[in-house]
């Protein structure tokens, strides 16, 4: 399943199952997060990303299967796990009645390794007023404050749930990517979920895609790209269904020109397309978003004509 499993792992999730009444949130999830990588978790809304992260934090007990973080069960040993983990939640759940300075002081008390100078530098970098009440902050500022609280004790594992949500593009580029990369370069591990696939593509080393509670694939970004190809083809017939190719995941277009996203090596795909009488106009590796849409996006399956 995973090429990352060979490395020393920080998180190991095996056959994790979670049901909320009738809704199957997770249906046998297996992931392995190796030490020192930036691990991106992508999936549609309701795919099960946040549920999986809550299991990793110990906020949910596994109904079936197992979760290990640093070799420990986060439900049985929450303190040991959480003291090595920095977390930024999707809904930025810092109490609104706190001031920024109070939130920093409060969080500092739980972590002996709190780096006061680093916290202050982050606060200045994020331009956060320590007198400001959390509830008066904008969504982006709340995200920055949450990020500060998660980073300032330099945890070996950083878990970020939709970290870019609410951040403007410059903040995303300058702050999030820089910080995430710095953390990874220091040999620490980052696990983050995101809807923004271009951001995942820029930052992540390993990507896991979750669809309807199952991991569709979990591998390095290079491997994903090497395993998929995108062809812009032309055919003689004006009408008819989308052209067929082995490993075809998604076809879009209409008439004579079609764009095909397929699973397989690019050269092999090109040869196969030519053999089937198609004229290959362009052949390149698809973006992560193309792969995502081809694999999981509803209503975008094979043969969509535009």
């Amino acid at each position, binding site marked *: 399943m995973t090429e990352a499993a060979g490395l020393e792992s920080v998180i190991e999730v095996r056959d994790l199952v979670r049901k909320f009444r009738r809704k199957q949130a997770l249906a046998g999830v297996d992931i392995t997060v190796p030490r020192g990588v930036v691990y991106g978790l992508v999936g549609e809304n309701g795919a099960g990303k946040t549920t999986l992260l809550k299991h990793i934090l110990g*906020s*949910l007990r596994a109904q079936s299967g197992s979760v290990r973080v640093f070799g420990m069960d986060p439900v049985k040993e929450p303190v040991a796990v959480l003291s090595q983990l920095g977390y930024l939640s999707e809904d930025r*759940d810092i109490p609104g009645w706190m001031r920024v300075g109070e939130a920093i002081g*409060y*969080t*500092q*008390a*739980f972590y002996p390794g709190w780096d006061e100078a680093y916290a202050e530098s982050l606060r200045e970098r994020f331009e956060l007023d320590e007198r400001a009440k959390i509830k008066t902050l904008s969504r982006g500022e709340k995200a920055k404050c949450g990020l500060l609280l998660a980073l300032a004790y330099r945890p070996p594992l950083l878990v970020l749930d939709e970290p870019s949500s609410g951040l403007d593009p410059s903040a995303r580029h300058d702050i999030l990517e820089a910080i995430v990369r710095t953390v990874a370069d220091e040999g620490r591990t980052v696990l983050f979920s995101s809807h923004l696939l271009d951001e995942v593509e820029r930052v992540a080393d390993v990507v896991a895609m979750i669809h309807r509670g199952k991991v569709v694939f979990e591998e390095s970004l290079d491997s994903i790209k090497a395993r998929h190809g995108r062809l812009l083809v032309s055919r003689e017939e004006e009408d008819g269904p989308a052209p067929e190719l082995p490993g075809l995941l998604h076809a879009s277009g209409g008439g004579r020109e079609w764009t095909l996203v397929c699973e397989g090596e690019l050269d092999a795909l090109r040869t196969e397309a030519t053999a089937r009488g198609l004229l290959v106009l362009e052949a390149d590796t698809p973006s992560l978003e193309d792969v995502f849409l081809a694999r999981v996006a509803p209503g975008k399956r094979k043969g969509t004509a535009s």
Partner: protein
Amino acid sequence: MKSKYGALAWEQLRICRLPCAGIFLSLLSFLLVDALGDDSSRLYGIVFSPEEVAIFSLIVAGILIVLRREGQNRNGFGFQNRLLALPVSTFRLVCAVLGARVLCLLLLSGAVVVTLALYAGSPISANRLRLFSQGLPIPFLLYLGLQAWAWSVRALRGFLYLGLLALLFLPSVWTSFPNIVYNGNMLAESLLIFALYGMAAFLLAWLGVHYQRMDRQSRVPTIQSLYLMITSAFMPTKRKFTSALDAQLWFEHRRIGRQLYVLVPVITLAALWCSFAFDVDIHGRSLFYFAFIISAAITGFYRVKTEGFVFTRPIEIRTLVRAKYLATFRALVPPLFLLTLLMLALLFVLPFDRYVTTAFLRKGIIDPLYVAAMVIRPALISGALAWFISWAAAPMITRTLIVMILFTPMGIMREEFMLLTERPLFYSVIALNLWCIACLILGWRRAIIPTRVMLAVVCFWAVMLLAALAPSWFEAGEYNTGLLYLSGLIPLMFLPFVAVPFKMQSLRTG
């Protein structure tokens, strides 16, 4: 649904149906108790007439409709932003929303009138119905006024303070209102007054929504911003904590604890104002206990809940729970201490108490039993009750409270409190004790309750149970009754030590 106004009305009816149904069911239960019960089923002999209860329930329904939450964690107090974005003129929008809400209240009042007519029997007393119908417009006018105020207060914040001012004069208006409106043959004038009041309320509501649509914000500061302005001047923005417990204790106290300090004087002042405005005689001594216990109950609903943020910090459940206990003590002890001093002062202030105290002092004696009965005993009882009720949101406490409420009328409220009637209560107290101990041991095994707490509580319980089960228990009368309550009260006081760790554990792991 083709008509947009129909869709709006349908939505409002859906919003209002829950408070209306709840109020109607409460009214039915009151009438049932009134019909089937005897004097002992009525709380301390205070009996309201069904008509008064019907009017009161309509008023409550109106308030609930104004305060109705729409969606999770959303307060429907103001006019919803979503509705403002609909392609409907403001006038029609306000007409549709307010009209649908008033229609709900009308339907409820219709159901109340029919129920009351059925309850009163046939032929129904004309005088009774006439009196009832005289009071019926009052809930509607109150609702209209309150709703208009709620919708306009954001844009026209001056009404915030005007509304509070109006509240001060409400009782005198309230008491004189029926006389002004229904005095002999003044029906036409009454209708005119009603119509004018209704129009004014509608105008205010429309203006509020109109301004909100234009994104006009009042520059008058809110009470909350005034409070923030004052507190920020005195409070440090950065804090240093020596330990996780220290930080969590600060967190709990800031979140819930210090509200009690505000609530006690506010409730006391409100009760004093009510007694003055409505000319109701309130016993000075019990007023403060009442305010203290009610304040503890109000804060209790939020005390056990912990923000999800806390559970992502590396904190032991035991530390978290300990911080909650300490914060509760910190919240309860200072008001209780002040309360005790106040009670002591009242011995020299209240006329009758002063007479007795000075009589004692003239004789050169201070009777400790008298002081204990007047000061220490009520302080201890109210302190214990406030402590217990501070944990009202823990499920185990809620269930116990329900059992207590169900059992209390059977036991305490009956004057003929005999040994035979004590028996079910006695067995339930024993069962409660055993249940608590079982949970305590389970919590200890799961390492969420510290060993010393477990041992201390079990030892105390064992002594109390042994005393309660002593042979003399089944023989004497009053002494055993006291012991029964003591053996019931003690586990209730200790119940939070069992209930809260379990609640925290379940909150942490979902």
